[in-house]
């Protein structure tokens, strides 16, 4: 689509045609006191050359540190074709196009993406993506309340092993609609939610329970037992899953007796680089019986008048442009570009490739834990199986250790002090397939030096 800027003459001609003196007059309806004339804190414009110089200098200040931080966004290898293809002009768009059926290629990508997400999660149907994992979880909460018509409480159980940022986002998005998110503690020994602790909710009206797998600590929850409790007590199950882990772990659709009702999460690990917190891409899938309560766009496969295979947006009567105020969500688009990258990533790797990535993550993290937890003053906080993250407990505040590691070019992990003060000096570390044995050894040596030096000081 060409971008053609207007000349001053073009603007004048348009204003004259509609009989308006200036562009400002078009905004007359906005009261004066709601307008601002200047943007305090925004510096004056720079030339392209100056901006390039400034941004290069900022990027260089980051250096090329070795990264051991996960906590919701993960560094994975991205095969070169992913972005070479995703940035081609034919498909380079952030959104579902308007008059979507005119863009058959885009709809086909959406359909392929949905098919792969549905396959990975073992759910019946996927939407064409949401903004990010956190907002996908919030949408899943809202959806569960709509889908569970017999439940009147809008109470959702949220283990504190769920990503704390996601919990905050879900709370902010849902509290205005009367949802009650009730947090549940975790077992201090293995860092997971104890299925037996759900007994205190027996007989109560619980709309849904969120189960994150692997949980924020990287630990594996007893998803089957938690799902069985929810099924037996009439609560829906919202699965928040790391999609890479699904190459190894049982998918939400097969949890417990009958599986989860909604699966959601963050698809950033599929070909999307770490980028200062975003943009990322949320996914959501569900069982067919709930499809009309699912937010977001859905591409369907059909045949045209000549009987040829074609793609179309389907079930649009749920959506805002048709259903107005009673739509399932205010989301009327998808995270198109990153969904495209994820689709290309998955089709390049295939099931075998993704399983290799996931297995390598598990192996590297196990090596990382054994390398670090052997150092004096460092121990693994939890027992039990984990995926590609682990909590370590240090003998001193984590912040100062991370600062010293950063000075040695190592991003050592995520400090849990703010969100989990009860864990003491706890550090969340992650190693994906991108970390080599040498990287892990380098981290071990650096941490040993830092701890020894600080102890001596």
């Amino acid at each position: 689509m060409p971008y053609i800027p207007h000349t001053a003459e073009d603007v004048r001609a348009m204003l004259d045609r509609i009989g308006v003196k200036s562009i400002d007059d078009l905004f007359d309806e906005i009261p004066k006191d709601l307008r601002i004339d200047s943007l305090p804190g925004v510096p004056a414009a720079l030339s392209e050359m100056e901006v390039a110089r400034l941004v290069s200098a900022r990027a260089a200040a980051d250096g090329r540190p070795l990264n051991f931080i996960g906590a919701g966004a993960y560094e994975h290898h991205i095969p070169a074709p992913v972005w070479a293809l995703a940035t081609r002009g034919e498909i380079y768009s952030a959104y579902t196009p308007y008059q979507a059926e005119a863009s058959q290629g885009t709809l086909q990508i959406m359909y392929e993406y949905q098919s792969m997400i549905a396959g990975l999660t073992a759910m019946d149907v996927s939407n064409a993506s949401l903004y990010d994992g956190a907002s996908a979880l919030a949408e899943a909460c809202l959806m569960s309340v709509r889908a569970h018509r017999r439940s009147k409480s809008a109470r959702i159980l949220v283990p504190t092993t769920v990503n704390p940022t996601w919990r905050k986002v879900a709370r902010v998005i849902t509290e205005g609609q009367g949802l009650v998110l009730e947090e549940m503690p975790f077992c201090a020994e293995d860092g997971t939610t104890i299925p037996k602790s759900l007994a205190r909710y027996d007989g109560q009206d619980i709309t849904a329970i969120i189960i994150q797998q692997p949980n924020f600590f990287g630990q594996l929850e007893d998803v089957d037992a938690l799902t069985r409790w929810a099924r037996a007590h009439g609560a829906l199950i919202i699965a928040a899953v790391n999609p890479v882990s699904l190459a190894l772990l049982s998918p939400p659709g097969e949890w417990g007796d009958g599986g989860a009702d909604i699966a959601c999460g963050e698809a950033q690990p599929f070909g999307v680089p770490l980028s200062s917190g975003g943009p990322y891409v949320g996914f959501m899938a569900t069982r067919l019986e709930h499809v009309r309560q699912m937010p977001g766009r859905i591409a369907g496969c059909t045949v045209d008048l000549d009987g040829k295979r074609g793609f179309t947006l389907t079930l649009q009567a749920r959506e805002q442009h048709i259903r107005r105020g009673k739509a399932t969500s205010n989301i009327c688009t998808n995270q198109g570009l990153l969904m495209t990258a994820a689709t290309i990533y998955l089709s390049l790797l295939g099931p075998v490739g993704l399983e290799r990535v996931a297995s390598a993550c598990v192996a590297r993290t196990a090596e990382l834990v054994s390398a670090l937890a052997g150092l004096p003053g460092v121990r693994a906080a939890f027992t039990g199986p984990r995926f590609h993250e682990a909590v370590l407990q240090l003998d001193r505040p984590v912040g100062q250790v991370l600062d010293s590691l950063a000075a040695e070019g190592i991003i050592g992990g995520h400090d849990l002090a703010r969100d989990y003060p009860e864990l003491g000096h706890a550090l969340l570390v992650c190693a994906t397939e991108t970390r080599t044995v040498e990287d892990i050894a380098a981290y071990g040596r650096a941490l040993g030096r830092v701890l020894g030096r600080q102890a001596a000081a």
Partner: protein
Amino acid sequence: MSNIPNDLRYTKSHEWLRSLPDGSIEIGISDHAQAALGDLVFVEVPEAGRVLAAGDACAVVESVKAASDVYSPVGGAVIAGNELLATQPELINTDPYGQGWILRLRPSGDAADLLDAKAYAAEVAAAG
């Protein structure tokens, strides 16, 4: 010209009501409404036991081009939703006053502002 049976009462929002011998009320949407919506693909009916106030949205009828709420013209407790519609939403298109009924409820009061067949026909004609 749409079919508007004389023995039913109607609302301006195109629901019909039938008083059953046991005092309960059956509700559906008119022939005119189903024709305007087009082929129905999904109907959400209320569950038994739900208590409705007059004017509450009690069901959703979805066609390929629109989804609309069905409003209960009278308050009461739902006795049953038409479960057949879950798999055969087209019954509303083919038999809007018979097999295409949407819900039955036990009314808790009188319905206000109902139209007889003649008045409803005039309403439909006026809306063009």
